[in-house]
């Protein structure tokens, strides 16, 4: 190679090397751009496609009764998902999943297809499957099926307190409270879902996971409800409604001093473990006692008389002229239930439940004062109990009162209230004149709920006087409540009510009544208030609502260990006989009452009726105790055998029952000691097993 050629070669080589070095510099600059300048952007893009956020559901808090009995629990169940991009054959997969999980094959196939097209890596197949389904699916060992532990809501006590508890519905894969405490305290119970960051490959296979936010379990709620009292209330309410061929009913039992509601029962009822069905009676899921107001009738005379004691010079022995049994008031004729009472004391007006007497007293009080006391007793406004659908009832403003309104209001018409409001009003008398706020929640998580200072609405003397007069209702031989079953060892007082049901459509009062009884015990230092309302009965307050009142009151006094204030008497009759007697009494009385009804159905004016004192078959057994009975479920030789739960823990029992698809009702705590029906007996389809736990 000559020198010239060599020089040229070196020159060209230099150019070439220069070009390659330039290329290298370009690569370097590009690296700087990607890895230094735009690093964050690319890192975000990388994480976005590589990571999948999976929600970790929080366990819903339990709901307990005041003694720690579980009323609502969340039990572990499996939910099934698939990674659609890993499903080998969509039609076979949907066939298999649909047949095991009992879901629609077509619908599932459609969802799978859709997910594959959208390149989704995750699809819920079915949430909260049954343990048996889970077991079958797991036995197939298909690696594209994923199981996720979740929890399922169970109400171990079955229908007990169902209206207070409410129920859940599922929205966007999330359980939400639909009614009752489940709804009112949903945010407390629900907790906070956590998130898990799942590292995935391009086919959305999870390779590694990292919990970025731990799920926070919901708080548990302890109610003021006592399961035993609640159970008794539901049992006797059912008896009262069914034996009187009434349509609905409700019972509220509460502590008049603290406002704690011990029982809130409604009929018809439902099992919150089951989804709403068409077979349920209409309104089975309504908390009638708090949400559906009605005209209270004579029980309201307590308010009229309290107002009179406070605002007029009428005293219990002041004589009121009740005339001859009928009264013309601005063209409206008001009748007594049966006959005129002549001139009687104010105390006897209450005992007889004289309509004319109540009107006379109401007129003395005056419209303004009467309305004031209606409000003071808490009517026309919500009690503030934590239930989502509480009704405030209706109290007309003074401007809208007609000339005859004062007469109506004095005897509990032209006004509507709920059973809960009546219990609250009765508590004013029972606790010495304070308006308490009813409470359903004892503890929210571990924190005891604040007790609100009650407001004084009437003088203590008035309350004490009213108590004595209300005791008269049940101890005076002519008192409307005289034939109420006695409660062994306790004095009690109360007021009956039998409001004719006003048919809005035809503007007439019908021959059906809202039969009610509100009362307290013991008289001198009342610890319990119970209000029973039975709607649509043909019978009057005392015979229809009375037996249930006595039974629930007796149970509440026993459970709450209230000191006795009377010597105990021995009950010669069994509980069942007593109930039969009560039923017979009701029917006989209903017949009597029908005769007693005054023929003013044609009148568009409201009217009120009150029961008479003669309740024939209740005999003269002055004191009858009502022991609390256990539910004995009849055995029928069909269906599966009851397993042996004895010696097992509550959780084990719950899980076994869920697995076997059995409904159980639990009571007590500790290990299972007794069960009804006993092990090995044949269960009727849908029959529940009641298991008694003890330590």
């Amino acid at each position, binding site marked *: 190679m000559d020198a010239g050629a060599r020089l040229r070669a070196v020159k060209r080589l230099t150019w070439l090397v220069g070009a390659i070095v330039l290329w*290298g510099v370009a690569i370097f600059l590009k690296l700087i751009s990607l890895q230094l300048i735009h690093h964050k952007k690319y890192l975000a893009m*990388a994480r976005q496609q590589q990571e999948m956020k999976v929600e970790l559901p929080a366990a819903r808090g339990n709901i307990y009764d005041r003694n720690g009995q579980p009323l609502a629990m969340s039990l572990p169940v499996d939910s099934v998902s698939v990674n659609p991009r890993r499903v080998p054959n969509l039609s076979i997969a949907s066939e298999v999943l649909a047949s095991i999980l009992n879901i629609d094959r077509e619908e599932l196939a459609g969802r799978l297809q859709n997910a594959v097209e959208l390149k989704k890596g995750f699809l819920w197949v079915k949430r909260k499957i049954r343990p048996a389904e889970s077991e079958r699916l797991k036995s197939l060992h298909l690696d594209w099926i994923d199981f996720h532990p979740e929890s399922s809501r169970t109400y171990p006590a079955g229908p007990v307190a169902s209206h207070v508890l409410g129920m859940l519905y599922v929205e966007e894969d999330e359980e939400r409270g639909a009614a009752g405490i489940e709804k009112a305290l949903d945010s407390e119970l629900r907790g906070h879902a956590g998130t898990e960051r799942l590292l995935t490959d391009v086919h959305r296979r999870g390779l590694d996971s990292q919990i970025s936010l731990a799920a926070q379990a919901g708080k548990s709620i302890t109610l003021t409800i006592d399961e035993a009292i609640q159970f008794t209330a539901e049992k006797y309410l059912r008896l009262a409604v069914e034996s009187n061929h009434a349509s609905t009913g409700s019972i509220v039992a509460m502590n008049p001093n603290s406002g704690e509601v011990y029982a809130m029962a409604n009929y018809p009822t439902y099992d919150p473990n089951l989804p709403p069905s068409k077979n349920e009676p209409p309104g089975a899921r309504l908390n009638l006692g708090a949400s559906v107001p009605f005209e209270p009738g004579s029980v309201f005379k307590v308010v009229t008389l309290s107002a009179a004691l406070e605002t007029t010079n009428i005293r219990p022995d002041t004589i009121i002229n009740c005339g001859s049994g009928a009264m013309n008031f601005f063209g409206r004729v008001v009748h007594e239930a049966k006959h005129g009472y002549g001139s009687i004391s104010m105390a006897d007006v209450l005992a007889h439940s004289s309509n004319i007497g109540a009107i006379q007293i109401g007129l003395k009080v005056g419209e303004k004062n009467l309305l004031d006391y209606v409000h003071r007793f808490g009517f026309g406004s919500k009690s503030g109990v934590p239930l989502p659908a509480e009704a405030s009832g209706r109290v007309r403003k003074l401007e809208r009162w007609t000339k005859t309104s004062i007469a109506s209001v004095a005897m509990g018409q032209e006004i509507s209230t709920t059973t809960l409001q009546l219990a609250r009003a009765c508590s004013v008398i029972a606790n010495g004149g304070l308006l308490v706020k009813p409470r359903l929640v004892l503890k929210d998580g571990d924190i005891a709920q604040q007790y609100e200072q009650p407001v004084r609405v009437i003088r203590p003397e008035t309350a004490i006087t009213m108590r004595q007069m209300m005791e008269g209702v049940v101890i005076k031989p002519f008192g409307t409540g005289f034939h109420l079953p006695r409660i062994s060892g306790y004095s009690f007082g109360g007021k009956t009510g039998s409001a004719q049901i006003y048919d809005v459509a035809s503007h007439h009062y019908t021959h059906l009544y809202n039969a009610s009884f509100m009362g307290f015990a013991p008289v001198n230092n009342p610890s319990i208030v119970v209000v029973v309302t039975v709607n649509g009965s043909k019978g009057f307050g005392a015979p229809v609502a009375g037996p249930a009142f006595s039974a629930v009151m007796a149970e509440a006094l026993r459970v709450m260990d209230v000191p006795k204030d009377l010597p105990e008497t021995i009950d010669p009759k069994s509980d069942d006989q007593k109930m039969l007697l009560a039923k017979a009494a009701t029917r006989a009385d209903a017949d009597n009452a029908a005769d007693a009804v005054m023929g003013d159905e044609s009148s568009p004016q409201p009217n009120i009726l009150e029961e008479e004192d003669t309740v024939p078959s209740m005999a003269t057994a002055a004191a009858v105790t009502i022991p609390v009975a256990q539910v004995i479920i009849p055995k029928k030789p069909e269906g599966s055998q009851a397993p042996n739960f004895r010696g097992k823990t509550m959780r084990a029992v719950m899980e076994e029952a869920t697995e076997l698809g059995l409904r159980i009702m639990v009571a007590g705590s500790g290990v299972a000691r007794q069960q009804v029906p006993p092990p090995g007996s044949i269960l009727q389809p849908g029959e529940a097993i009641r298991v008694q736990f003890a330590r």
Partner: protein
Amino acid sequence: MALRLRTDWILFTTIIAMVFFGGLMIYSASSVMAELKFGSSYYFVFRQVFWVVTAVSIMMLIKRTHYRTLQHPGFAFAAIGLVLISLLAVYLIDGQQHRWIRLGFVGVQPSELAKPALVVFLAYFLALRSRAINNKHTLIPAAMAVGLVTVGVVVADLGTAVVLMATAATVFFVAGLEWRYCLIALVIAMLGVVYAVASKPYRLARVVGYLDPQFTIVQHFDPQGRVKEYLKKSLVTKDTSYQGDQSKIAVGAGGVTGQGLMQGRQKLLYLPEAHTDFIYAVVSEEFGLLGSVGVLLAFGVILWRGIRATILIPDDFGRYLALGVTTVLVVQGFMNMSVVLGMMPTKGIPLPMISFGGSSLLSTLTSLGLLLNVSEHAG
């Protein structure tokens, strides 16, 4: 020849370090995929170890053999002839890709072996005719040989063909090819590339995906969408820019210091060919800017040592051998990096010394064996 030769330790160390680093990166990039596909996370690593042992042995053998032994028509023509025959054979045997000859459990890519063969042939030929480069008796046979090999390679492997053409062009350019011939060669080469690209839908798809991912320009002069339809025939990439995007995400996510060895996530099947053509993306993701610049600098070392040998070696054969080898390796390395960084449309070429692949490693280390030997004599 009593002169004691000194090994080019800088070059040698760089090569060995890169090969070992490559093995490590292949394990990192392939373990998850290998586990999923073949049931063993070491599937590719074991294979690579076999090839490393073989290829390093061959490299050491060549390093110890004087390069001028090869300056013989027998070697030059035998090499190019063997490559042409095997290219024909692979065209007939591998009916699909025309890329692989399977020998037992190993596959060989003749196109890879064409690189050292062509370099040896060109060095021999140019040394022989160094005084009459621009003579047609030199140019026509040389052009025919280069053309034959390139056509043989381009059927299966456009990337390698481009590397070969670039190498041939470089060597001729330095050897003193007149500008007009350079221009003619450039025009022919460009026409060839355009034809080669258009003949395979996946190639066109990659080029269009690089230049015009949203089809806005294509839409302009092809309103009927025939081109788009044609590109859809490509089974390799449904989304024409997918590979490039995934690769850029991996590199960008690496940052300055990287995610750490084995900590990269783009290799979880997001990156196509993570252990072969896109291994540089895995290096960048796991070792960050430090790692990616490190590999870039390693190729810089090869360039430096290669050009140094080219300048210092006294004979023409050694000069063109060193230049050819250096050009082949550095151009291929830079091209691979440019593809990974999205500076060029996707081509199926591996990163020399790092990527998984027996033929590639064999070819690369054979070439480097030659360069080491030339460098020893230059020193």
